[in-house]
């Protein structure tokens, strides 16, 4: 077949040949399983029922169930529209955006900032920050593993797996109490080999909404010091948990006070509503400025063969807002408003369930914090919520409170009561 093709072309006959007979190189490619979280939205969208409720993906909704673009974001966009050069950012991203972002996590007057001890790069939201860190960990601590809480955001496992960093787990959620399994958590910290790497959710744990108390964080930090563990904080909800960004950074500040050299992933997806813009930051605290420069250069070396340099638009929105005191204040107000609405919905959902006479305890709805409520429902109960009530959530029973409104909280409570009352 191939020689015929060459012969024909030598004879000057224009022939398109040689490839039609070949079978696909991808015959053996299996269809991949659907992403458990994003698949929920797909199912929701496909449902024609007028009563359908989406409490799956953690994207904020207002009380009408609509996505929200913050006013500060609209204003920032208005200011920058028409002015952007769209040139490549440096590999490490927008310096201004990173500076403002570090202030949020580390504190405006942090000595670490003054002493330039933080290696930081703009990253593709929280996912991108975690992945860059995982790749960095693989390259510079190849013998290390990552300890991941049970449960955690499902994609954490994918990220460290694709970075080829071996994973272990540590106890976190206590199903019996729907709270923190503190004793087992501390045991796991102690039993891990010295110098282990741990993934910690800075606030508003995803998916459980269960956070350690301040006292518990102090004990965790102390034990980390004893063991020489490395703390990597994933902070995707700063401001979104309590409504106060400073308060939501407490765990990180405790660790910093204790002198830990932490790593941190930050995301503006939720707290600035910039989901699709993919804006975030990865930072690694170093011993001194020289080390920070070296580490930053290595982070850039990992970003370059992945995407060269990060997207400019979202970064410009962030730096416009955080760099302008008026806009920043507006943002703080809007973040608090979002957090307050969610807290209000938690109270409403719990009250509704209690009023319905549910035999179960629903305290955890208001004990937990942030966007998600780990309801404690089983996968089968979740399936029934979807098939009988057109209510969509991930099968681990995680409810995105952002999807709850005054309009649907009664319906939701009723449905939950129906599927759980005979337990």
């Amino acid at each position: 077949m191939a020689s015929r093709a060459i012969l024909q072309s030598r004879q000057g006959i224009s022939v398109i040949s040689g490839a039609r007979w070949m079978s696909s190189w991808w015959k053996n490619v299996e269809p991949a399983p659907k992403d458990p979280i994003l698949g929920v939205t797909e199912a929701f969208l496909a449902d024609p029922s007028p009563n359908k409720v989406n409490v799956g993906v953690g994207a904020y909704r207002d009380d009408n169930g609509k996505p929200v673009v913050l006013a500060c974001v609209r204003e920032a966009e208005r200011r920058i529209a028409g002015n952007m050069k769209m040139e490549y950012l440096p590999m490490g991203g927008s310096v201004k955006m990173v500076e403002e972002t570090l202030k949020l996590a580390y504190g405006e007057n942090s000595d670490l900032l003054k002493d330039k001890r933080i290696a930081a790069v703009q990253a593709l939201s929280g996912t991108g920050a975690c992945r860059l860190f995982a790749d960095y960990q693989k390259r510079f601590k190849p013998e290390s593993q990552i300890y991941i809480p049970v449960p955690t955001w499902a994609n954490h496992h994918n990220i460290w797996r694709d970075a080829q960093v071996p994973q272990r787990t540590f106890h976190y959620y206590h199903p019996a109490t729907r709270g923190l399994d503190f004793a087992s958590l501390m045991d796991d910290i102690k039993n891990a080999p010295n110098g282990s790497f741990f993934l910690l959710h800075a606030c508003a744990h995803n998916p459980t909404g269960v956070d350690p108390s301040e006292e518990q964080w102090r004990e965790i930090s102390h034990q980390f010091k004893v063991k020489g563990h490395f703390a990597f904080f994933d902070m995707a909800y700063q401001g979104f948990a309590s409504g106060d960004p400073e308060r939501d950074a407490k765990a990180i500040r405790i660790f910093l006070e204790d002198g830990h050299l932490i790593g941190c992933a930050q995301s503006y997806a939720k707290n600035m509503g910039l989901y699709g813009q993919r804006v975030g930051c990865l930072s690694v605290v170093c011993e001194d400025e020289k080390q920070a420069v070296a580490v930053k250069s290595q982070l850039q070396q990992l970003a370059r063969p992945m995407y060269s340099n990060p997207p400019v638009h979202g970064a410009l929105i962030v730096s416009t807002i955080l760099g302008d005191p008026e806009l920043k204040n507006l943002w703080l107000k809007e973040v608090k408003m979002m957090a307050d609405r969610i807290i209000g919905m938690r109270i409403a959902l719990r009250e509704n369930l209690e009023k319905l006479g549910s035999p179960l305890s629903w305290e955890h709805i208001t004990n937990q914090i942030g966007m998600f409520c780990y309801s404690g429902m089983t996968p089968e109960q979740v399936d029934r919520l979807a098939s009988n009530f057109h209510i969509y959530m991930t099968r681990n029973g995680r409810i995105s409170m952002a999807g709850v409104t005054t309009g649907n909280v009664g319906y939701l409570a009723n449905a939950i009561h129906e599927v759980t009352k005979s337990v």
Partner: protein
Amino acid sequence: MSPQEESDCPRFDQAHSFSSSDRRISALVRHLTVPTHASPMDSISAAPTSAFGTADSVFAHVVQAPEDPILGVTVAYNKDPSPNKLNLGVGAYRTEEGKPLVLNVVRRAEQQLVNDRSRVKEYLPIIGLAEFNKLSAKLIFGAESPAILENRVTTVQCLSGTGSLRVGAEFLARHYHERTIYIPVPTWGNHPKVFTLGGLSVKTYRYYDPATRGLNFQGLLEDLGSAPSGAIVLLHACAHNPTGVDPTLEQWEQIRQLMRSKGLLPFFDSAYQGFASGRLDADAQSIRMFVADGGECLVAQSYAKNMGLYGERVGAFSIVCKSADVARRVESQLKLVIRPMYSNPPIHGASIVATILRDRDMYNEWTVELKAMADRIISMRHELFDALRARGTPGDWSHIIKQIGMFTFTGLNSEQVAFMTKEYHIYMTSDGRISMAGLSSRTVPHLADAIHAAVTRMG
């Protein structure tokens, strides 16, 4: 710390006027203070090898990475105070005034987006904006491409060309039976790292002939001919970076036949569609030839240059498959590559592209602006060639007008380049590549002087 501990602890940290070393000392002091309150944890003594009492970084051994050779040029340029400095490093288009250019049509699209209050910033799907993907496929393969009409193409939005290449590499490393990719010599500096980190191993094939400053076609055919069956081959769709040397259509046809006969898998990098000749369809011919024969291929598309969207990171990765069923399965696997990398791509740039491509008027406006950019570059080539001829600079400089796209591979060696940087403040990559986009009528004479001096004084 408990209140008890705090009172035992000297409070150095309250004095903000202390130097950074004082602050570090105070931090260490806090570590060394033994907690005095009773807690369940007291029964655990510090492990002998624990880090208790130290602030050593686990990354203390990390050394500073070298500057990226291409992006490092701009870093060096920015540091230079000379008023005559010229940046011919990064391939970013510049106007005649040496300014970055945002296309008018892009501004229009942006305004539309800003004014549309119904737009939200929600997550895109993992594979990005659906309309953008469809329009991108049409742009590169042709709207009437049988592969598209038969639903055999999967297209996913990625972060510009780099992101598309990386996603493609990771997909191949997981799902393709051959792990070796052949890249031309020379090629874009970032290619080897993208493929290596993506899980492939990199080999090379001859491409550029320094003697002719053209294509080493014989060497190319020999090297591809001796590649193992099934190997992946990276092809620059047009406007080869860094050399600007492209195969002719007849040569492309020979390459195609050879590759198909050996079952070599084509992986196209299309970063300059429309920018090379000024015509979008012409610049896509190489790819379309391969698609027309019914075979499979991979394509990385970038809108960085041809729409001037550099920093927005807009691109698309396509796999042309044998059947629609295969395309669907392949797409589902691409999601598994993307999700742990960045979850979903950035929305802004893709929205601009979709706005432009879907609107007949805006599309036409774009083609006009694109042609203007390509034409300006071609005229810079001619001006530089004429200027060197006028100076009687030794050597054959016709390659400047024969090469195509944003770059010229001058043939200057690294010593000559260093000389030009030092004496004439010309910034370019040490392989002798210059970005024609960085030139203007005003600056051509300065560059010509520099080249002349480098060639005559440094041989």
